[in-house]
């Protein structure tokens, strides 16, 4: 032991506190609806080498995605080239990013002329340009449809954003005001962290502080390795598939993972996964890593401090040109379903080794539904909704109905909020009874929601999953029921939605959606 244990713990707590303060700053003043209702923003503190030190309590998907972004920014702008007050940012999915609306922003923490830490935030902006408002076009077939790409940039100096870059961004996106506002929230969060970390360094000394942060990382690594060593060695395969890519609707997109546990390491090999696809469901490595990080955190236990050391025992093999490591210019905006699929697959493989510790598959779906149109004054509006299925049954208990799982943890839209914001009526919000897979501990049920358009036309984009492949049961439990959705036109025609759809709804049309149930656990009694 190098450092006194109380001081180490005090430092760990303080770093978490700073990350929480950053998160609070972003959430409280955000105007992007997806951040405000769904908490789609995250904050972290990094060592100068890009190792994550502390993370706010927020979406696992975003927390994971910030890590590669900071690595990439560091490659472009080595710490030696940084000056106090520098603001670095990027969103390019083909250069360390995840999807275009997620902008990563980083500021260095200087003490006595040295960078002692980095403060980073990632934030889902309301619009970054591209084919459709919100910049997540389901019908995109190349990255150029998806909005404005920002390669790793020095976005500002001395704490001030470069006006010229801001103007370039402003003319390329639909809601420049909101972007600037939310960008300020990201910067304010990083600046707060800079001040706090400087105070911490002043108290403990910069060098001892850095040394203690490194020790915390090393300890987390050692603990994670110990937890992996306690797992059975072996190799397990799990195969699953996306319904389709959203563009070519009659073709499932297979995913395959081989999980190897050997001694104190875990390797995830995605060889055998589909080549990259035409539609926007490709996931760039940042998103894949977020899923892998979630899985390793979830299976190695909560008693291990959360930092970059936890991820060192993990190796991931992503075949080039595949669904999970696409080559430009493949479209990548709709990667959430893919990341959920691979997270579930990794857990599904490990469940074969540890059926008592890992639940059956969750519903594997977080439907993203957006309605857009123009209000009476001609102003464009978008309302979005993320609708969940259930959690899987486990050795401990039945699954939970209608709840966000694994890499997601986003709130739904209250019907009242949606009706206030858009000319729709919500007719039904219900548990889809009986949809959870049977078992000793049944899977959680999916959700039913039904909307009527009061004043068309509205553009509907619908991104479902598990319409053709059920969430599987485990340890003798049964599969969950698959998702279903349809549009009921005002004249009575019924149009089935085959997992993904982009269409126009007219006055009186209805959208009915039912998400998949989760897998059950154990042989039913």
């Amino acid at each position, binding site marked *: 032991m190098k450092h006194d244990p109380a001081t*180490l713990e005090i430092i760990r707590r303080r770093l978490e506190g700073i990350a929480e303060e950053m998160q609070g700053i972003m959430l409280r003043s955000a105007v992007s609806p997806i951040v405000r209702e769904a908490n789609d923003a995250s904050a972290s503190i990094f060592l100068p080498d890009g190792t994550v030190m502390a993370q706010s309590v927020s979406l*696992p998907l975003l927390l994971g995605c910030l890590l590669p972004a900071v690595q990439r920014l560091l490659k472009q702008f080595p710490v030696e080239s940084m000056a106090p007050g520098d603001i670095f940012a990027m969103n390019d999915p083909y250069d360390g990013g995840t999807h275009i609306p997620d902008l990563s922003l980083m500021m260095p923490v200087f003490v006595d002329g040295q960078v002692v830490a980095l403060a980073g935030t990632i934030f889902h902006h309301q619009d970054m340009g591209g084919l459709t408002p919100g910049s997540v076009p389901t019908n995109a077939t190349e990255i150029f449809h998806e909005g404005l790409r920002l390669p790793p940039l020095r976005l500002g100096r001395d704490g001030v954003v470069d006006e010229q870059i801001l103007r370039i961004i402003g003319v390329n996106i639909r809601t420049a005001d909101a972007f600037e506002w939310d960008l300020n929230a990201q910067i304010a969060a990083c600046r707060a962290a800079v001040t706090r970390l400087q105070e911490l360094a002043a108290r403990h000394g910069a060098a001892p502080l850095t040394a203690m942060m490194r020790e*915390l990382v090393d*300890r987390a690594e050692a603990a994670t390795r110990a937890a992996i060593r306690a797992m059975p060695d072996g190799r397990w395969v799990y195969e699953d598939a996306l319904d389709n890519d959203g563009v070519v609707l009659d073709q499932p997109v297979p995913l395959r993972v081989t999980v190897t546990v050997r001694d104190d390491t875990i390797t995830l090999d995605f060889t055998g996964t589909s080549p990259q696809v035409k539609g926007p469901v490709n996931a760039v490595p940042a998103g894949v890593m977020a899923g892998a990080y979630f899985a390793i955190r979830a299976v190695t236990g*909560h008693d291990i401090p959360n930092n970059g050391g936890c991820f060192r025992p993990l190796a991931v093999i992503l075949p080039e040109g595949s669904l999970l490591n696409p080559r430009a210019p493949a479209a990548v905006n709709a990667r959430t379903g893919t990341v959920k699929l691979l997270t579930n697959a990794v857990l599904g493989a490990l469940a074969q080794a540890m059926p008592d510790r890992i639940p059956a598959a969750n519903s594997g779906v977080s439907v993203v539904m957006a309605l857009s149109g123009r209000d009476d004054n001609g102003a464009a509006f978008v309302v979005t909704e993320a*609708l969940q299925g259930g959690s899987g049954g486990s050795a401990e208990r039945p699954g939970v109905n209608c709840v*966000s799982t694994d890499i997601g943890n986003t709130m739904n839209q209250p019907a009242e909020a949606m009706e206030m914001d858009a000319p729709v*009526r919500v007719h039904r919000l219900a548990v889809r009874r009986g949809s959870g897979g049977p078992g000793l501990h049944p899977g959680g049920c999916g959700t039913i929601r039904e909307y009527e358009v009061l004043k068309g036309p509205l553009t509907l984009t619908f991104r479902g999953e598990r319409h053709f492949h059920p969430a599987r049961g485990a340890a003798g439990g049964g599969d969950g029921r698959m998702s279903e959705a349809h549009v009921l036109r005002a004249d009575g025609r019924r149009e089935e939605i085959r997992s993904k759809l982009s269409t126009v709804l007219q006055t009186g049309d209805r959208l009915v959606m039912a998400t998949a149930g989760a897998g059950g656990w154990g042989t039913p009694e």
Partner: protein
Amino acid sequence: MMYEIGIDIGGTFTDAVCRAADGSTRLLKVPSTPRDPSQAVGVALARLLADGGGVARFLHGTTVATNAILEGTAAKVGLITTAGFEDALEIGRMVRAANYDLSFGPQTPVDVVPAERRLGVAGRIGPDGAEVSALDEAAVARAVHDLLAQGVQAIAISFLFAFINPAHEQRAREIVAREAPGLAVSLSSEVDPAIREYERTCATVFDAALKPVMNVYLSRIETILAGQGVSVPLQVMHSRGGLLGAGAARGRPIRLTLSGPSAAAIGAASVFRDAGFEQGVSIDVGGTSADVALIENGTPALRHDGRIGKYPVRVPTADVLAVAAGGGSIAWIDAAGGLRVGPRSAGADPGPACYGRGGVLPTVLDASVVLGLVDPTRFANGELQLRPDLAEAAIRRDIAEPLGMSLVEAATAIHRVINATMAEAVRQMTVARGIDPRDFPLMPAGGGGGLHVAAIAEDLGMTRIVVPAAPGVLAATGLLEAPLEHDASRGFFRSLTQLPEAALREAIAGLTARCAAAMAADGAEADETEVSAAASFMGQGHTLDVVIPTGTDTPGEAIRLGFIEAHRLAYGHTRDAPVRLVELRVVQRKRSTTGAMRWPAHATTPDGTRAATIYGQALDVPILHRARLAPGERRQGPAIIEQADSTTVVPPGWAFTAHPTHLLLEVSP
């Protein structure tokens, strides 16, 4: 002699403060009686009135309502809701509390009202308040009979957009009254008139479920009062930190939840005021948690998004940050070999190892005993004899040996970690909100606050500490200081541009009249009216509170300008953009007339010295009894100041001065 009596029920002890007309004040702690909490109230009252005397005011704070929700012991309740939304209560907002837990349980009160007791009826109000389709009255009647057949004792009614137009809910209540006379009913439009159906339904369901329970409970208290010859009306503390009559409390029992932290914060504000401070931070340290409250302008800050356990309960309550750090917090070694303290607590049963009740895990209190900060023979006024041998064994086995430290080093490390956790909570309430805590005095409360307060203050650069005369009964003290208070609110969720000034004036007048009527029912007239709004920019989810000058002709403009400025103050940036009115609120209060309190002056501890370890330094520390400190005399630390309900550690580098209402500690190197 006439007395004012405040009795506050806590998890372990029921605390009483009794002020005589001449200002002399007594405090009393009796064990709580969880099975029938009113019993402890009876015991305390009997002891206070043993030598005769009458009661001029009787004020009561209770955790009965909160506990009934947490423990699932509220009444069997049914829910009538808009057809199609029967499951809204079960589905909630679809989020889970623990990110990385793969096998979590339900996150919504699905067990409180299972599916068969959630019944939908046709009839819709639209977002503009207009009726979309008529209420199916026959369906309401059928639902009532269905629920009665299932044995419900209360019915909650929650319809979409009732916070804008309550007509359907009010009609449904009439039907319930016709079909089931006397059955408890709660309407969402009255319990929590604000947007978001899940949160509003949650509050309404709990309100209904509490009505039968709290009715019985309050009747028991009234019977006890009558039996002791007390004829003044019972007044109860509500979540906002004010008092209301038992009649109003029966009508809206959800308002009795979360009242404990508010009472303590009111007590803290009053002690700060007596000490000459209009602002400060209090930290109330109990067995399992520490509550941090911020006092500004002489009153505790409020929040409107309270939670009970996993569930949102939108009642206004003191903005208190509770962290899992208390005397019972367990010290342990994590998987990475790091020292952790909490969040698990040994609680009151079995309690810390030194309780000798079978607890074997080392806790913060065990560390305090090992360090010599707590006298094991006088803990809780000597009611519990602590076992230093068991404290030492637990710390040695679980902490000192694995970490290769001495016993005292390990105990010091436990204290350092828990102090940092508490300091972190103070930081989140101040620094993280743009407030510099160095300008604020810090106040310890609860049995354990005084053991940690100086270390917390030093961590944050705070240089003054105000120790109340009776830190262990701050909530009961707060009861005497709290105003009689009624409030009313109305939800809007509309752009101010769509709300004519006349309509807003009328709404404010209506809410004010409702408060005045409630005041009159408690036999009082308000001496203070406060009108405020919750507002946001269009598109934002978080609201800020804006005070509206009373009597203004242009409340809308006042909200708009006030909000734009409030946003600048809160977030450092603002803009002239359309503002959304989310809620209007009116509060009326009549201030407490309680005069100064003089606390008892009998000392039970002999003065002397004790070997103790403070900040890792072994010292021979003077032990002083609080009651023997002469007012105005300034002394230098180190010292340990003992009193019946708590212990205050004054480290080297601090000086202390006794005052009639408090003890002031100041940095004095």
